[in-house]
């Protein structure tokens, strides 16, 4: 072959492609056998990935799935909170008062109120604050859940009363503070009537119920000023992501803190993922093994058929390696075309699946989907498989002797 490697490769690729075109029926058969494996596998993997990622997205979009609920009350100091917040699985940690003290009445007027609404301390990073809603900044700010806002018929910027009741020295007392609605949560974020407030307001509510004098609620009765709060009964805890829920729950349980999570829901999705992965792997390997066997047979038969042409190329001066490269180049070309067609079939099939099976899903949701990285990986795998098949044919090709072109008739 000429010393100029570029012209050498150009000639080799040109000859290989002309040969494929000349034998287009055979080329088409080899391509068809590749497409018959590539397209269904892309669709199958697309369905598996699409279904599982859709389920995971659904889980991920609901912050309750990341929540680790503490059962019962404890005595948690700042060091405990710092240690928990530093845990790599932790996503959001917030002190919380005793459960009985996390309720209040919300009142707009006599016709619009929400009795015993949940009062939840919040801060930046709170998973409930989706869609760019800012956390409450002052004692007079609240972010309402969608159901609370609906009951009260209020929207952002409206003012409502937050009412806390207590029994002090045998008398029923009602403290109240006017708060401003600074945001309304999405429907999906929290289903029950609730108000997100600053931790300071929640502490003030608990102190008020404990009999302390809290002027914020407009009552002068109670024991002087409460001491600064250093310990909390509970905590709001959210994991960093779905996979972090179980390890974080384990960490808490190792410290004798009873918790509950939605681990069963997460585990169900992970089980679906595992089952689908197993099904996909079995089908994929069966198909790939069949494809490799078919390719080896096709390439070997093709090389035997072209034996005289390959011997002639050797006679004309093609080195052994060049003849091997010629066969491999043809394999790469056939695989490239087959993958392009297979990918087209996948796009068509996935569009049908997404239209037919994804009709009930939200906008932008999908049933069958692959990331670009998956496509690239599939292409490289297809090339590797094809070159493996062609490699055996190529090995036979490089042993073809130029003399075979002379001994004809």
């Amino acid at each position, binding site marked *: *072959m*000429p*010393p*100029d490697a570029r*012209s050498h490769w150009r*000639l080799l690729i040109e*000859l290989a492609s*002309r*040969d494929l*075109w*000349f*034998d287009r029926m055979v080329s088409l058969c080899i391509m068809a056998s590749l497409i018959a494996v590539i397209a269904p596998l892309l669709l199958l993997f697309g369905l598996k990935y699409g279904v599982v990622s859709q389920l995971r997205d659904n889980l991920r979009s609901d912050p309750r799935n990341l929540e680790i609920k503490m059962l019962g009350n404890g005595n948690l100091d700042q060091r405990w909170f710092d240690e928990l917040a530093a845990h790599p699985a932790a996503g959001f940690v917030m002190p919380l008062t005793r459960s009985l003290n996390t309720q209040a009445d919300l009142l707009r007027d006599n016709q619009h109120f929400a009795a015993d609404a949940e009062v939840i301390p919040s801060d930046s990073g709170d998973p409930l604050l989706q869609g760019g809603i800012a956390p409450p900044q002052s004692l007079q700010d609240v972010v309402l859940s969608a159901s609370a806002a609906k009951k009260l018929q209020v929207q952002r910027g409206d003012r409502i009363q937050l009412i806390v009741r207590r029994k002090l020295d045998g008398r029923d007392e009602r403290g109240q503070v006017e708060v401003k609605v600074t945001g309304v949560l999405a429907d999906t974020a929290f289903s029950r009537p609730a108000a997100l407030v600053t931790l300071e307001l929640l502490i003030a509510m608990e102190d008020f119920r404990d009999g302390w004098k809290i002027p914020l609620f407009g009552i002068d009765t109670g024991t002087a000023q409460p001491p600064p709060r250093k310990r909390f009964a509970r905590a709001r805890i959210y994991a960093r992501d779905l996979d972090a829920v179980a390890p974080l729950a384990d960490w808490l349980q190792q410290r004798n803190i009873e918790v509950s999570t939605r681990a069963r829901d997460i585990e169900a999705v992970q089980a679906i993922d595992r089952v689908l992965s197993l099904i996909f792997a079995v089908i994929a390997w069966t198909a790939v093994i069949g494809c490799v066997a078919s390719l080896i047979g096709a390439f070997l038969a093709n090389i035997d058929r072209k034996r*005289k*042409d390959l011997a*002639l*190329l*050797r*006679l*004309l*001066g*093609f*080195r*052994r390696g060049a003849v091997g490269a010629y066969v491999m180049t043809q394999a790469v070309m056939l695989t490239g075309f087959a993958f392009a067609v297979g990918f087209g079939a996948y796009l068509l099939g996935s569009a049908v699946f997404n239209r037919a099976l994804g009709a009930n899903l939200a906008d932008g949701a999908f049933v069958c989907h692959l990331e670009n990285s998956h496509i690239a990986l599939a292409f490289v795998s297809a090339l590797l498989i094809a070159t493996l098949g062609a490699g055996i044919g190529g090995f036979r090709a490089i042993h073809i*002797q*130029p*003399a075979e*072109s*002379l*001994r*004809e*008739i």
Partner: protein
Amino acid sequence: MLRIEGMAIERGTGSHSYRVALPELTLKRGEVAAITGPSGCGKSTLLEMIGLILTPAQLHVFTLGDTTAVNVAGFLQRDEQAPLADLRAHRLGFVLQTGGLLPFLNVRQNIELPRRINGLVTHSELVDDAIDRLDLSYLLDKTPRQLSIGERQRVAFVRAIAHQPDLLLADEPTAALDPFQARRLFELIIDMVQRFQIAALLVTHDWDLVRDCSIRNIAGVADNNGNNQGTVFRDAA
């Protein structure tokens, strides 16, 4: 231009062994020689050895070319396939029994192939001249399967000389042709080889054709030396 001494090979084993020998051969530029002999005497085996595709068991001298003569014997003895392939591409041209054209290339592309393999520009006055003389212009865009055997042989001949090799080797190029076509092709080859100053060795079993064209005849004669049967190729008287 071509000088060979002491080339021999033994095929088969035991009582079936058969020896093919070429004690001495020298060819000058423009010289055409026929290798003749009965079927099975080893003509093609000899051609394969001279064509660098079969390694002789014995070889004393094998040089190819004039001012840039290459000691081919060394490469053959060391079985160095890569330089042998390069030598085939650069210095040899082959014509096979039925042309040996690549079916997926048209006539023009087949003719240009050796020049492209050697990194030469595809256009050549020598090739244009040969195409005109062999009346192939109207066939250039046809594929080999659209040609008659005689046309294929003419195309194969032009392809064999397209890169101006030192030596043309033809393995029974007239075997598939009728006597008229065979004679015409033979005469064309002799004329063109002399015109372009290429040495040529033509394997044939057509003694009449060799005699009528008055070319040198290297004939294979039986060489029963002890237990070994064989053929030795020498200049015929």
